[in-house]
């Protein structure tokens, strides 16, 4: 019983904490962010397993975590509003070449971030070459160049 409760509690705590911390952190991952992620994984592992390192405990936990994920994916499919809350929605940062500065500020994305992505992914040199930029729900920035 304890394993199932631990698994479910940690799953939802992580889901809420990661969602509320903002997705910009996922998109622009620095080496320190990676270290932070490893620390979170280690902390979570201890909270999940406690003192019980048995195979049955690990197996039960894996099944609980996967089942929650599957269950949540169905809920998200049935209720798009829940999906929006859990996964977020895309945010248009540049529309028709015009940057939406409020969206930039609220989503904590800088023009430099967009220009970097434009250079790396599209080989674009200037902001004027960008038609649209979208901060996707997964935290990545996608760039659509002008024709």
């Amino acid at each position, binding site marked *: 019983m304890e394993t199932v409760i631990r698994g479910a*509690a940690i799953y939802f705590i992580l889901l809420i904490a990661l969602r*509320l911390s*903002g997705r910009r952190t996922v998109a622009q991952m620095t080496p320190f962010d990676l270290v932070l992620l490893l620390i979170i994984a280690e902390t979570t592992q201890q909270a999940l397993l*406690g*003192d019980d390192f048995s195979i049955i405990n690990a197996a039960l936990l894996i099944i609980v975590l996967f089942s929650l994920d599957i269950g949540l994916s169905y809920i*998200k*499919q049935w209720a*798009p509003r829940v*999906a*929006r*809350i859990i996964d*977020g*929605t*895309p*945010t*248009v940062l540049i*529309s*028709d070449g015009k940057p939406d500065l409020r969206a930039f500020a*609220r*989503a904590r994305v800088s023009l430099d971030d967009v220009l970097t992505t434009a250079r790396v992914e599209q080989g674009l040199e200037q902001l004027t070459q960008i*038609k*649209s930029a*979208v901060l996707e729900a997964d935290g990545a920035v996608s760039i*659509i160049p002008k024709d």
Partner: protein
Amino acid sequence: MGSLEQPTVREDGLQLDEHRRFQERFWTIERLAWCVFALIIVAGLLGAFGSGGPLATKVTVIDKAIVEHPRIGRWEGTDEMIVRFKSDPAAQTRSLFLSNTFSEVFQVEDIQPLPVRTVLEASGQRLFFDNPGHDGGMVTLHLRAQSAGSASFSVGIDGELASLSSFIFP
């Protein structure tokens, strides 16, 4: 709208549902959550979640002793209970009574110093410590919480009972 429905095409040509009003609300909630994060950190520093800090420990003064016990603890976490016996010229042996409810909540991992004898009683156990100098002393119990939730228990010093309580976080 189901997830298999196509998003509408916007004026700028992008086919996506931005849900800007929802996004604005969420950004506000996000920032409020960061304030809550800050409050949680401050509460953690103050000991509101146990494991040290001024709120985590409660000091109870009774006639025979001063008892410091974990007011807020953590399930399977370690804590300390310190009993400071006051000097008593009439007592050569001091006793510490731990009720059964105390034992149900806390596992005593270690006692410093060790009692000279332990007497089992219906409502708990009584530990005896030699104190030939009659000048009191300090007994430290290293505890590990065994169950989560709030718990009330009794601790007795030389026959004087004190009702204490703890909240154990899961």
